[in-house]
């Protein structure tokens, strides 16, 4: 089991780490038992629905950190609708692939993203 260079790059120098103080959407996914917790913070433009800023905090293995970083990079600038179409597989592909046993439990940032966006949509129903 080996990580690609891209995974190592995002693990060693992750983008968008930390809390986002002016976030208007967030979601947490995972638990310590499975070894991964991912928390996403989003700042959505309330008019356009565009993700203006996004950040993460992750407790997890190298892949969990790298996929979190990559997911935030990929989601930034997308509309809610676009971001809802972003999949785990796209994240993994963008990282040059993930070891098979990392696909499931360490690649949950896209799920956290969808969760945050759906909760946001519920709270901000389209007029």
């Amino acid at each position, binding site marked *: 089991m080996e990580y690609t260079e891209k995974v190592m790059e995002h693990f060693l120098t992750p983008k968008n780490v930390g809390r986002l103080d002016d976030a208007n959407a967030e979601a947490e996914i995972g638990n*310590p038992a499975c070894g991964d917790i991912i928390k996403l913070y989003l700042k959505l433009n309330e008019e356009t629905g565009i993700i203006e800023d996004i950040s993460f*905090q992750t407790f997890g293995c190298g892949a969990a950190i790298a996929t979190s970083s990559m997911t935030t990079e990929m989601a930034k600038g997308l509309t809610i609708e676009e971001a809802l179409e972003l999949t785990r597989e796209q994240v993994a592909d963008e990282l040059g692939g993930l070891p098979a046993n990392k696909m499931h439990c360490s690649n949950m940032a896209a799920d956290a993203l969808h969760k945050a966006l759906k909760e946001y949509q519920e709270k901000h129903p389209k007029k």
Partner: protein
Amino acid sequence: MKRIYLDHNASTPVREEVKQKVIPFLGEMFGNPSSRHKEGRVVRVAVENAREEVARTINASSREITFTSGATEGNNAVLRGYWQSYKEREKKNHIITTAIEHPCVLTTSQKLKKEGFDVTFLPVDSVGRISLDELEAAIRPETGLVSIMMINNETGNIYPIERIGEICQKHNVLLHVDAAQAVGKVPVDVKKMHIDFLTLSGHKFYALKGAGAMYTKWGRWIKPLMTGGHQEKNRRSGTENIVGIIAIGEALKLARDEMDADAVQIKKLRDYFEKRVLDEIPYTQVLGDPSNRIYTTTNISFKFIEGEGIILKLDVAGIAVSTGSACSSGSLEPSHVITSMNVPLEDAHSSTRFSLGKQTTKEDLDYTVDILKDTIATLRSYSPLYDEFMRNQQKGE
């Protein structure tokens, strides 16, 4: 980049003397020890000398030593052999082992349990100790075998084999000891410890991977795992791993003389390292039994982070260590050894094993502490658990 290897419990480098000793067996000494001609005989003599070294190291007689492909094979041979022999004899179908055994004992016991064997897995306390009273209470008339490791590979905990041996003897139960992490590092005496079966593995004491030995007390007999040629007095068929065997002989010969000095020297370094880590990195804890550990090992948990990140970052900085974290092993659960000690999951996931060797220096460890401080701080800065904890701390103040 210079590498700093702190994973000697996973495997040791081959020491130079051992390398020099085996090289002729890659050249002119290539005979099959079963052959009658000179090419065979010189190799046979070398194998028997190596056997003598193993015997001397554990106070056995050389006819009690069988060479194997490692401790995994040895432990399977004892457990499966005992099970086979039991099935033939239809009695004593209960064995006792512990929750913290190496997978080759634990998984094998679990599999034999499914096949009808009765197995008790003794629990351990929060530092990984077993209770001798519990052990004794678990012995029943149908108990035939107790299987307990001498030193745990993850925590370095040392188990009181001599006292366990006395209990087994008192109740007329056989004792199997997985001594893979002990032989070559601490004195082992199969007679004094009342051991019936013992296994060891070359690559844990500066010999080669894929070769080991087992001790079978004279008079004990278990069905072999493999049958065929008459090698190893029929206890283990198959052409012998000559370079592996020669390496074991040489490495143990050297280890016997060096053990005492190592115990002083490496312990000093380990204790120094451990103290610096605990002093200089907050929310950090030693896992295992500090008062009863092998001098090479310290297993430390770094709260709020997952272990794989630690080993990856250390690796990038040139340092090799291992972790009991789930993600790292490819399984989904953290180390059974750590979880059986009831360590909270967040801590279990960050458990990191540093195992020192003969070549480890103070400079190596100083560098490691520096890198580690940075690594832990960085990974914590990513962690939602750490963030939450710090916020709660601030609120509390």
